[in-house]
């Protein structure tokens, strides 16, 4: 196995919760509670799970927008948690594309300036070199250099997401964290953006961490998928295997819950989870999924199943996995 591009090691993010300034009762919301994951060069890893599972928090820790409470993120052999110059240099290599293309672009800057901003911040190139680079990037994401002088409000959601991608590409990163990049877009535009991300990856050989709640998009783009639930990993698997034979009951339920665009299978057997997601501030004892799991018994409610390797590249956290 070659050395991974990025290695997330037992990362946790805990937030203190209390009702007021002086009443910290020592309660913690464990948004991400001990996750380890390697991403290799040229690979796309999908993070899926429902709201509150910690997928976005994990993504933000990888790009350095949030500091982990404990654990380590090692990128190309260097810890991302070290301070100073080193961190700034490493930061160039990891970029992010955000969910909402309406709030992630500065409405007062024109598109060329938005895309050139990372170059300016890192003092790269002269102004004419930057201009050339911006034109290249615009073309790469399917826009033209004439779009550079316009402002974000003149663009549709899909075009804005293209601008966001161009900005993320400006510094030639080796990893892009895509946080729900297509969930705010219309169906026909989603496909355009997913294809664009794939083409860029083939072209530049970069890696993605692709965060989404929609299984369809994740399946389409990912090589491997990490299924999360309330801050923990439930299952890690290579994509096609995961869909052919989900091992964790939560994965199975997630796949089964997706409405399929085919009315002839509408009466299929389905696993319908009862109840709501538990409050992340107060997760169940034992296995976190035990309150909704059709297989759960006494043991699951008392003891937390560890994430164990069951075959090459497949990890599951369940006592009774498929």
């Amino acid at each position, binding site marked *: 196995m070659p050395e991974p591009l990025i290695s997330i090691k037992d990362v946790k993010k805990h937030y203190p919760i209390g009702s007021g300034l002086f009443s910290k009762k020592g309660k913690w919301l464990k948004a991400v509670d001990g996750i380890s994951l390697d991403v290799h060069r040229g690979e796309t890893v999908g993070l899926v799970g429902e709201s509150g599972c910690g997928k976005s928090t994990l993504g933000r820790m990888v790009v350095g927008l949030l500091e982990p409470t404990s654990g380590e993120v090692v990128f190309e052999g260097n810890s991302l948690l070290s301070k100073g110059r080193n961190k700034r240099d490493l930061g160039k290599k990891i970029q992010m594309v955000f969910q909402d293309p309406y709030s992630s672009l500065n409405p007062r800057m024109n598109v060329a300036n938005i895309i050139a901003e990372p170059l300016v911040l890192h003092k790269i190139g002269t102004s004419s070199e930057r201009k050339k680079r911006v034109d290249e990037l615009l073309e790469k994401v399917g826009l033209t250099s004439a779009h550079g002088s316009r402002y974000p409000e003149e663009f549709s959601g*899909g075009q804005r997401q293209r601008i966001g991608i161009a900005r993320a590409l400006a510094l030639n990163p080796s990893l892009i964290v895509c946080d729900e990049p297509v969930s705010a877009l219309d169906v026909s535009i989603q496909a*355009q953006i*997913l294809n664009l991300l794939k083409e860029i990856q083939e072209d530049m050989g970069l890696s993605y961490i692709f965060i989404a709640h929609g299984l369809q998009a994740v399946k389409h783009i990912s090589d491997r998928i990490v299924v999360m639930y309330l801050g923990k990993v439930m299952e890690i698997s290579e994509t096609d295997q995961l869909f052919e034979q989900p091992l964790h009951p939560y994965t199975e339920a997630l796949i089964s819950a997706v409405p*399929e665009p085919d009315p*002839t299978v*509408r009466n299929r057997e389905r696993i*319908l989870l009862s109840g709501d997601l538990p409050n992340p501030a107060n997760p169940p004892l034992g296995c976190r999924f035990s309150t909704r799991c059709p297989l759960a018994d006494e043991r699951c409610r008392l003891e937390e199943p560890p994430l164990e390797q069951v075959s090459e590249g497949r990890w599951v956290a369940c006592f009774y996995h498929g």
Partner: protein
Amino acid sequence: MRGPNEPVLEVKNLCSYIPTSRGVIKPVNNISFSIGAGEIVALVGESGSGKSVTALSIMGLNSPSIKYEKDSVISFKGENLLKMKKRQMKKIRGNEISMIFQDPMSSLNPLHPIGKQIAEPIQLHQGVSYQKAKEIVVNLLAKVGIPDPENRLNDYPHQLSGGMRQRIMIAMALACNPSLLIADEPTTALDVTIQAQILNVMRDLQKDTGISILIITHDLGVVAEMADRVLVMYCGEIVEEGDVYSLFKNPQHPYTKGLLASVPKLRGASEKLLHTIPGAVPNPLELPKGCNFSGRCSYATEKCLTEAPNLVETGKDRRAACWHIVDLQTEEVTVHA
């Protein structure tokens, strides 16, 4: 499918327009359809296709800046809702036609306990006491699958999860036994396992009460799971209509074909590249001269650019607005990367 023999609602030549300083926008441009008794009709389209404006026109809730052409008719039980006085409309809205919205948090009043909010339409429309209404509410909450309903009555909306709030909205909408429920993206804001629960609740209620449902969504999966009949909208017009099985099996309009082909498949190996519809929805102020879809359509010919096709009958229970339906039927979807 029970068929549109006895329509509960009939929309005829609905045409709405907004005069702006840069020209007239037509959010809904001359659409006609009907909803039969006990039927679930899905209205699909992308943002800006006019599906929500259509729903709000039925409810009489559109902003006053939206005007209707004179011959537009929305006929409900023989009366034209568009010609109705505000006071008459109030008697229908929430009573005979009710609606649920995408975001249940912003449709519930945060200052009142949910029991009181659900009881309100019952008291208002049925003239019963709060005590009597409360009994009805407990029944309704049990029906939409809320555990321990008696003790939920005094909860405030913020104490409930998104899925629970949407159940509350459904309970509220059903409070007065309406004959039509309009559901505008009812599950878009919910997690997928919760979405499955809510869709189930809606389906079961439909079976129990025989209510007609107009469901508005952009998700073709939701359409396939729920609908009897499907209306596809594009740029304010209905471009295709059909019963759900034949429409998904054999989409006739290139736009419907494109939409269906651009959804990533959950079964089988992943496609390398997805089918895409090139370009984007045109600006409503600069619509093409001929067919609105012509700029993005791979079948478009000279005629499509100059002359807009009408929605015509193309088979049993099928309508489509395209000049090329005949050629389309004989060939498979051509996938363009």
